[in-house]
């Protein structure tokens, strides 16, 4: 049974619809991502789960019980905000023990917990420093320690890595994932970075304009996006219009065997990395002219002109072709995703 369930959540702010009929369920110990562009309602969703914002309609269940009437401070859903929001007037120790102190937990237990958190977060020796004396990565770990110290039922991470520089971001991402796996705490990560979502999460929920468009494992989302919207959001795409006749998809890119029913008009989506550019002497059923090429070390980005269409390809930089050269394209129809027009 799912540990957390959002049921038909609606929320508007001053006539502007933020969340529309949102449903989501999360299993215990899972780490999921809410992925979407800014302004799609991700952070609002977190605040609704935490109890900082009340939904207009719908219900939130934790362990199968509605928590709508449980106030923020008792709900056990702790947010780690993007800008950490460490209390500047409290030391690292004061920050970490804050939640326990508010719950009037005995001092001895508090100190123990702080010690445990400091070592878990590799912050030993930092407990008497003030937040402004810490580096970005340390601040992030204190924020995380402070949230985990209250042993929440669910940990909510709001764009936790976006304030860090690129290198630190990767380190922290690994670190957070390892802590999550160690503690097996149910975690919802909000991000606009698809790579981050892909690398950290058991499941990803794609959020666009206040709705969850698709919810599934990273592989499902990447390989089988259920709509063009999701496909576009998840990276570069090529669309080809064609038709199906007697088990064959006929398109400007060539003919491909398929199990689909006969259709007059159908759109196929194929990722650039599924289109391989090879020498013109290799026999494939598609040929085109390179119009642009960009060298990116291990990969080549090509733009190929073909029967009036522009096709994008990302190929391994084994053999390099120049602009104007005629090339063959190798395409595997298994990797095509079809949408109705």
């Amino acid at each position, binding site marked *: 049974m799912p540990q957390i369930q959002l049921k038909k959540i609606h929320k508007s702010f*001053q006539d502007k619809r933020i969340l529309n009929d949102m449903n989501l369920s999360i299993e215990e110990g899972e780490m999921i991502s809410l992925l979407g562009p800014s302004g799609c309602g991700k952070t609002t969703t977190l605040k609704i789960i935490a109890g*900082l914002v009340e939904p207009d309609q719908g219900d939130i269940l934790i362990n199968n019980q509605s928590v709508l009437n449980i*106030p923020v401070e008792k709900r056990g859903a702790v947010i780690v*905000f993007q800008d950490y929001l460490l*209390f*500047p*007037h409290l030391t690292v120790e004061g920050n970490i023990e*804050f939640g326990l102190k508010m719950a009037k937990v005995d001092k001895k237990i508090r100190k123990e917990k702080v010690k445990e958190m400091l070592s878990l977060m590799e912050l030993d020796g930092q407990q008497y420093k003030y937040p402004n004396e810490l580096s970005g990565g340390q601040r992030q770990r204190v924020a995380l320690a402070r*949230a985990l110290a*209250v042993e929440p039922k669910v940990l909510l991470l709001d764009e936790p890595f976006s304030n860090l520089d690129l290198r630190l971001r990767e380190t922290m991402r690994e670190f957070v994932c390892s802590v999550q796996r160690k503690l097996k705490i149910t975690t919802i990560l909000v991000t606009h970075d698809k790579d981050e979502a892909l690398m950290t999460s058991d499941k990803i929920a794609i959020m666009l304009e206040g709705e969850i468009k698709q919810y599934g494992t990273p592989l499902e989302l990447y390989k089988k996006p259920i709509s063009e919207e999701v496909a576009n959001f998840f990276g570069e795409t090529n669309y080809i219009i064609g038709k199906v006749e007697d088990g064959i998809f006929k398109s400007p890119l060539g003919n491909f065997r398929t199990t689909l029913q006969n259709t007059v008009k159908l759109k196929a989506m194929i990722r650039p990395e599924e289109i391989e550019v090879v020498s013109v002497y290799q026999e494939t059923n598609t040929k085109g002219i390179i119009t642009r090429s960009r060298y990116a070390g291990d990969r080549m980005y090509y733009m190929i002109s073909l029967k009036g269409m522009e096709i994008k390809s990302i190929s391994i930089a084994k053999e390099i072709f120049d602009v104007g050269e005629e090339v063959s394209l190798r395409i595997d129809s298994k990797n095509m995703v079809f949408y109705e027009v």
Partner: protein
Amino acid sequence: MGEYKMNKRNRTLSGFIMHIMIFLLILPLLVLVVWSFSKSWPWPNIFPQEFGLRGILHVLDPSSRALKSLLLSIRLSLVVTIVTLILSIPAAKTLGVYSFKGKQFIKMLVLAPIIVPPVAVGMGIHLTFIRLGLANRFIGVVLVHLIPCLPYGIRILTDVFEIIGESMEQQARVLGANSIQTFTNITLPLIAPGLISAGSLVFIVSFSQYFLTFLIGGGRIITFPMMMFPYIQSGDRMMASAYSMVFILATLVVLIMMEKAIKSYYSTKNYFYL
């Protein structure tokens, strides 16, 4: 090279202008100090003939009415400051953090008492205060002092709340603090620097108030500026200067003590400007 020289010359010129202006601003205060310590300074001497403490001693004499009115003034203005801050905190939080219908109008209304002459407000409300039995009493003067003070208190704290926002408080809430715990553990320490500046300014505004005290106090509530007024009016430079000196020093002392008190309570640093 030429550019550099230009800049340097400009800098010297600015320094010169600055010093002249600061000198002109401070000179009158120096004359005031000299007057307050003079015993005899007849026309046309440029310096006093004799120095003495008669003026200052008169003001600080424990049996004098002057000292009594000074203490009354301090007490009055402290009460006004505290009440203003208590009223201002929730209002400033609302104006700084929330959005709601009529916010712009309320912001204007809050600012209005700085602009609208106290003369008009005071005379307009005087009769009502008399009817309600508030005139000629301490409480009435406190109430009427709130009018020029509230705009400053609310304005400064609104700026503070705009900077700190609501996020720290929300963070405390999700960590399990209830609303009262959040207020005392997070909000108050965070706005402590703002409380110091708002409190100082409000104290000054109340402490310097003459007309409203005079009108609503009806000669019964004699504050320090009221004691000082007749000496200035009659041109008794020595006494007036002595009063002014004591006034300025008392203000400084109270402000320093107020700052110390808030700082020691919240061991505050200026967090959000770091």
